[in-house]
């Protein structure tokens, strides 16, 4: 369970950070098109971060076992 908890809490915390950035940008930009592009970049980076963490945890565990 340790690995799943690490993945879940990391995903939630980083998603919350992204949501607050998008909230600020939504107020500052006013137009939805730039927000959509920035949102897509942030969400893709978020997904890549989850994969990278998963890969690191998988390697760490294979070394330990």
């Amino acid at each position, binding site marked *: 369970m340790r690995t799943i908890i690490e993945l879940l809490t990391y995903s939630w915390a980083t998603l919350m950070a992204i*949501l607050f950035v998008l909230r600020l940008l939504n107020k500052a930009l006013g137009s939805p*098109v730039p927000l959509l592009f920035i949102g897509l970049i942030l969400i893709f980076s978020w997904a890549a971060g989850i994969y990278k963490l998963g890969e690191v945890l998988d390697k760490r565990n294979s070394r330990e076992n």
Partner: protein
Amino acid sequence: MELLPIIPAVIAEAIVLYMVTKCRCVLAPDIHKVNQPLIPKIGGIGLLAALPILWLLWSPLSKVALAFFTVPLVMGIVGLLDDVYSVNEYLRVAISFGYPVLLYAFGLMPRLIYVPLIGRFGDVLLVGAITLASYIVFSNAVNMLDVVNGVVPFSMVIISAVPLAYGLLMHDQSTIYLSLSSMAASAVLLVFNAYPAKVFNGNGGTHVLGAILSGLFLYTGASTFVLIAALPYIINGVLIIFSSRGIKGRSKLNRPTKVVEGIVYPNREGRGVLTLVRMIVIDKPMNEVGIIKSIYAAFALSFVLSLITILIWRSI
């Protein structure tokens, strides 16, 4: 009065699923069991019996009801045909995602979305993009995690509790009805799909539940909270797509785990694909029941994180 359609829908679904267990048709092996018993893989047909009742007896002409109930119906029928006859992949995708696109293009779907913590959006292009992406992401994400008994309907019961809590908080009857419909239909399926499964969800079942999840995301006003409650699905999908370098069929992927005498181990031969189940068994190899309990715990944790997010949203 508003909640009355749920009762006949639940009864109809239970009767249909009971008949499926008796007919023993369209069978598939349960690969995690030692003797690999053959199980009917058309659980989606039970949901297809419940959805028209939930839709027609409630508010059939409203845009929200039309989108929330008919998209899962169409996706479910295509998925069910795929379970029985193996429909061509391109035709399946074209009908499943072509239908919501047509509904949206003809203005038969809501063109307004509220994303808690970010804001309210009414731009036709932006909402259209979010709507289509939501159906694609959730229906595939649910399908990808349908690997052990009971996980998909259990997760849907838990996830539906989040918009239900939000609906009760906001006194929004529509959100309460949609959440309870999703919760009731999933709970009946869970009775038949829970370990040891008497019925598999099949593509029909996972596509219906994926589209319902998408509906909860789009039409309840609780999108952010639904997304967080569904994090195990998202994490599993992200791990699979990134580690396999794109979207590929299950048969083309290097197996993430291997089963030895009923115990599931991570597959260390070659470059195994990363999945949620692999992330569970890298800590400690375990049997199917252990994996199911771990996934249930993951959804329970996501549910708690979602409730924390609601509290944060209320406090700002």
